[in-house]
């Protein structure tokens, strides 16, 4: 532990404070400093003072560089945490709502499988384990197959440019889902609460619900409505999937997770293909797959939810956005004369710029994708993208400002749905199961995001969370509950 330039440190530490101007100022000064120094460098013999001075300057530069790294890392951490917070909250809301719904509907009466007619194997408890496994594996594979086919169809449609078809299909299916599943759920709620209702009001309710839902999701509407409806959609779908029989549901979850890995990571994965084609001939596919990314737009340009945490996020965000101008600077400056940097691949300026534009496209495309988390690369510039020469400030600003509404991390609606399915299945058991699965899923999500930060590429969000969830579910059901039961009955705390 030492105490070098503590004031300095203290200033760096409170990074959100609007101290940026002065620091930028320092930047420029230091650059001047450096240039001066270079100009001064002559093979002539130096005086003590010159030596000393030189040394001071070096150390100054060095300190600046470290300052940069530090800041960049802090930017990363902040962007990570704030965007993660902005993901965790809606995910938690969705899961909690699902649990409440399931507990209300199926606390006393058992849920009837709503896939009875379509599923090839209807599980009944008398069957042997093997038969159950085989049958439900078949069911799960059929459902996953359907998903796979749909994804490929969408990709094909996209390749051959009949996107309107896809739009029509998606809007229609959303309307049907909100209308029909919503109505069924509503009736189940009425039955569960033993309430009366007449058809007239019922139809009016459902019509309003569905129409406004589609309007808000696909056309125009207040941000808050949009969010609520996206949550509602995932809760409804989760409820339907939760009605699958035990084994089928778990196997389906596993299969979906695996398919997710394939689709996002493998070179031939349809989602990857989708993104790549979208990049090659840049077709606008905004709005595809419900714009689920809308959640995680950085919230400081929507006026609908302005509570404290949003504001704090805003601070994080804006600061980070301010910062990465500040981040790119030192490299551009320092790499002029500091040729001792170990990695030395140096793309041309224009190439670099088109890299960036491509990135923009990419971010634009990828957030339509259903099953992956991604982050705009601008927030965390990769080392190899470092420009060789210092580029004018203008360009930088320009980039930031067009990046601004791309900020944050984007999570597909599919992930929401399948997390909720898992939680719904858990909530058919004890509350302890719900809690453990909840923690498991959130932790898995955070881990995924962490890897995202590390690897800086699009990742599937399901596998880690789902596997955690499944393991925790069975552990809780098999070992934890009896254990806790025994301790709790005799009021023992350990």
């Amino acid at each position, binding site marked *: 532990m030492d105490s070098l330039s503590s004031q300095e440190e203290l200033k760096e530490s409170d990074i959100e404070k609007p101290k940026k101007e002065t620091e930028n100022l320092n930047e420029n000064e230091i650059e001047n400093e450096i240039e001066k120094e270079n100009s001064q460098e002559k093979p002539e013999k130096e005086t003590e003072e010159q030596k000393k001075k030189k040394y001071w300057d070096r150390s100054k530069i060095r300190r600046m560089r470290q300052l940069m790294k530090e800041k960049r890392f802090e930017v990363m951490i902040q962007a990570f945490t704030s965007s993660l917070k902005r993901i965790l909250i809606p995910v938690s809301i969705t899961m909690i709502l699902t649990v409440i719904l399931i507990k209300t509907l199926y606390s006393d009466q058992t849920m009837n499988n709503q896939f009875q007619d379509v599923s090839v194997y209807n599980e009944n408890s008398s069957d042997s384990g093997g038969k159950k496994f085989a049958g439900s594996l078949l069911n799960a594979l059929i459902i996953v197959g359907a998903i796979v086919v749909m994804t490929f169809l969408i990709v094909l449609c996209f390749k051959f440019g009949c996107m309107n078809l896809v739009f029509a299909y998606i809007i229609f299916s959303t309307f049907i889902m909100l209308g029909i599943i919503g109505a069924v759920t509503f009736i189940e709620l009425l039955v569960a609460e033993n309430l009366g209702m007449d058809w*007239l009001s019922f139809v009016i309710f459902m019509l309003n619900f569905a129409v406004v839902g589609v309007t808000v999701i696909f056309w125009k509407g207040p941000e808050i409505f949009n969010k609520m409806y996206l949550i509602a959609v995932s809760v409804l779908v989760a409820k339907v999937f939760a009605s699958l029989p035990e084994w089928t549901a778990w196997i389906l979850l596993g299969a979906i997770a695996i398919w997710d890995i394939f689709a996002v990571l493998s070179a031939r994965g349809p989602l990857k293909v989708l993104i790549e084609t979208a990049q090659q001939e840049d077709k606008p596919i905004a709005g595809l797959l419900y714009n689920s990314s809308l959640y995680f737009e950085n919230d400081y340009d929507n006026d609908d939810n302005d509570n404290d945490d949003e504001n704090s996020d805003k601070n994080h965000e804006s600061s980070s956005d301010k910062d990465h101008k500040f981040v790119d600077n030192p490299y551009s400056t320092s790499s002029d004369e500091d040729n001792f940097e170990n990695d030395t691949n140096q793309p041309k300026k224009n190439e670099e710029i088109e890299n960036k534009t491509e990135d923009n496209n990419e971010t634009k495309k990828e957030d339509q994708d259903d099953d992956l988390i991604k982050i705009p690369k601008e927030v965390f510039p990769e080392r190899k993208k470092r420009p060789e020469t210092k580029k004018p400030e203008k360009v930088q600003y320009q980039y930031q400002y067009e990046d601004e509404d791309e900020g944050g991390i984007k999570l597909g609606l599919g992930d929401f749905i399948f997390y909720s399915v898992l939680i719904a299945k858990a909530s058919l058991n004890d509350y302890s199961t719900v809690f453990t699965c909840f923690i498991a899923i959130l932790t898995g999500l955070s881990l995924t995001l962490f890897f995202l930060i590390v690897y800086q590429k699009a990742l599937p969000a399901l596998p880690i969370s789902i596997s955690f969830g499944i393991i925790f579910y069975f552990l809780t059901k098999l070992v934890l509950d009896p254990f806790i039961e025994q301790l709790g009955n005799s009021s023992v705390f350990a």
Partner: protein
Amino acid sequence: MDPSTPLTEEQKIKVAKKMYIAGFFFLPWLWFCLAIYFRKEKNEILQKYVKKAYFGFFVFTFFLLTWMAVFLSQRDRWGVKGDNLSVNIPYGDSNYDS
């Protein structure tokens, strides 16, 4: 297609008009949505729409609620008609108080 993209004034007015007209097809919730969407707007045309939408929403809701109240209280007396009109016939006595 994208709710988040910012709109120009005349686009906003178009949207408001469409939503307002659509609201007449038994869509009070859409009116409410419209009112919330443009509630912060300065433009007085939009403001007019917002006011109208609020008015329509509350009037419609009022009538709907009165109808529901009447139905729920009179359901049993209407006999077969009442049953055919119900989505769900609750068990037991409707005016039960414990």
